[in-house]
């Protein structure tokens, strides 16, 4: 079973939910935790991981041989990203705009374009415990998009693991979509604020469009408002769990620890989240 953990708004507790859920479930079954928040991966902070595999994620960038180039302009005419321009002095590639699609090479009539690979980030795999395997993607500083890193990370999904938990980036744009492709369930983590609700509604729109069943976890829950409960009822989406607003939980998190280790009553709660999800997708 593949579960993606997402949230429209950043900082609502995706990492808290992913790491605690993975750790609790690994006590009863085999689990793989994948951190697909490749811009700012944090799950690894909460575990002692022995990494045993690392691979680069590469893009193929064009290299123009300006001696062969006849300045015909076919490459720049066909490039959809404005990443290649032809001047009298030669043809120039703007590497940061290039998507590595290969169109310029395809259309060059004199074969003046070859390709070189450039690393945009990496994927790392490791082990936390016998029942808990780990993987993460990291985007290099200055690179615009982590989609390809997420795609490569997901190729390492362990089909033997009973549960695969994938921690997503915040937002609802392309990296989140890549994370959601082919998952069985999405946990939407939110907080009971106007902003939390607004961004949750966008995330729900996305999972509905992608036909992925989902449930909500309310983090930093307080008794002051029930805006999320009302919304969930209206949208007919189950609330899987509420994590109370407690300074102790925030403190444990801030130190890079799993709060369910220190507050065992939550282990039961995470287990029941899993049971609810199982019931929902079967």
């Amino acid at each position, binding site marked *: 079973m593949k579960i993606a953990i997402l949230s429209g708004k*950043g900082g609502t507790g995706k990492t808290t939910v992913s790491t605690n859920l993975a750790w609790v479930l690994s006590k009863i079954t085999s689990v793989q935790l994948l951190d697909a928040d490749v811009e700012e991966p944090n799950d690894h902070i909460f575990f002692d991981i022995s990494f045993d595999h690392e691979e680069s994620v590469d893009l193929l960038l064009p290299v123009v041989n300006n001696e062969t180039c006849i300045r015909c302009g076919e490459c720049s005419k066909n490039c959809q990203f404005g990443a290649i321009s032809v001047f009298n002095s030669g043809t120039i590639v703007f590497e940061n705009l290039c998507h590595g699609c290969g169109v310029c090479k395809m259309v060059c009539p004199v074969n003046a374009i070859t390709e070189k690979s450039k690393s945009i980030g990496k994927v790392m795999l490791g082990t936390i415990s016998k029942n808990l395997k780990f993987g993460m993607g990291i985007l290099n500083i200055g690179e615009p998009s982590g989609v390809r890193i997420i795609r490569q990370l997901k190729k390492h999904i362990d089909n033997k693991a009973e549960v695969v938990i994938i921690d997503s980036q915040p937002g609802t744009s392309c990296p989140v979509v890549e994370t959601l492709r082919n998952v069985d369930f999405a946990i939407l983590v939110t907080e009971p604020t106007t902003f939390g609700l607004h961004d949750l509604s966008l995330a729900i729109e996305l999972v509905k469009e992608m036909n992925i069943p989902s449930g909500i976890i309310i983090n930093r829950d307080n008794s002051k408002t029930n805006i999320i409960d009302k919304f969930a009822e209206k949208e007919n989406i189950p609330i899987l769990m509420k994590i109370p607003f407690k300074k102790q939980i925030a403190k444990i998190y801030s130190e890079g620890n799993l709060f369910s280790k220190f507050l065992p009553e939550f282990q039961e709660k995470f287990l029941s989240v899993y049971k609810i999800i199982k019931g929902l997708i079967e």
Partner: protein
Amino acid sequence: MKQIAIVSGKGGTGKTTLSSSLGILFKNTILADCDVDAANLNLMFNSKIIEKYDYYGGKKAVIDPKKCDGCGICKEVCRFEAVIYKNNIYKIDQYACEGCNACVISCPQKAIKLTESLSGNYYYSTSENKNIVHANLNPGEETSGGLVAEVRKLSIEKGKILKKEIILIDGAPGIGCPATSSITATYFVIIVTEPTSSGIHDLKRIIDTVKHFKRNFAIVINKYDINEEITNKIEEFCKTENIEILGKIPFDETVEEAILNTRPVVTYENSKAAKAIIEIYKKLLKIIKEEGKNYENSNSI
């Protein structure tokens, strides 16, 4: 006009809290909400939409099933795994397609076309004396960096007409294209962080990103007293790296109340958070007045 961007690697550290409050304190300012995935700034000001614009992002390929003869060349040339072959039919996965045109060029039957689709909207809104430019990216769309650029262009345009002195940019989280589009060519960048293990980890990555784009920047530590040990670590780190700390905002329940009531926290004048933000504002003013002349060429994107 000077553009000041407020960013954070990690989400939820308090960008909108700070930018909305600075939006109140800077009298002659226009706000640009560049978190187009999850725009919240306009909610904070209960603003009314005055102008609405369409945003067309990247194009997507579409296969005409009547012309397709099933040769599969499109699937071979696509580097984004966006051509799916199922039940003897080739189809484009709209989410994976980057609109590069490779399949269109290669199709011997000319069965594939690139089509443009509406990816989102951007708006000019006002509330009392505040002017806000913000946007909505349709869920699942890419090219959010392009939409951020539109938001910034419109804010410059409006700022010029209204003779504003400052553009305050509420940036996107992360370090990818929406975040970097929020900071390019700005006058000053404020990085908001929080004293958690994740916060400090993400802080280092956003600092490297801001340095990569060669921007002047300083740090604000939000909720600094939830873990003073890590706050000390951040301060030490900034000292060795020679990075200015613009201010520290204490944990204050008023912030939560302010968000629930959609009011910038600085309007709760006696709150601890408001006082800290006013100090940050004063320091910023000083930077703008004293050092402003050093960074003159930052007026355009």
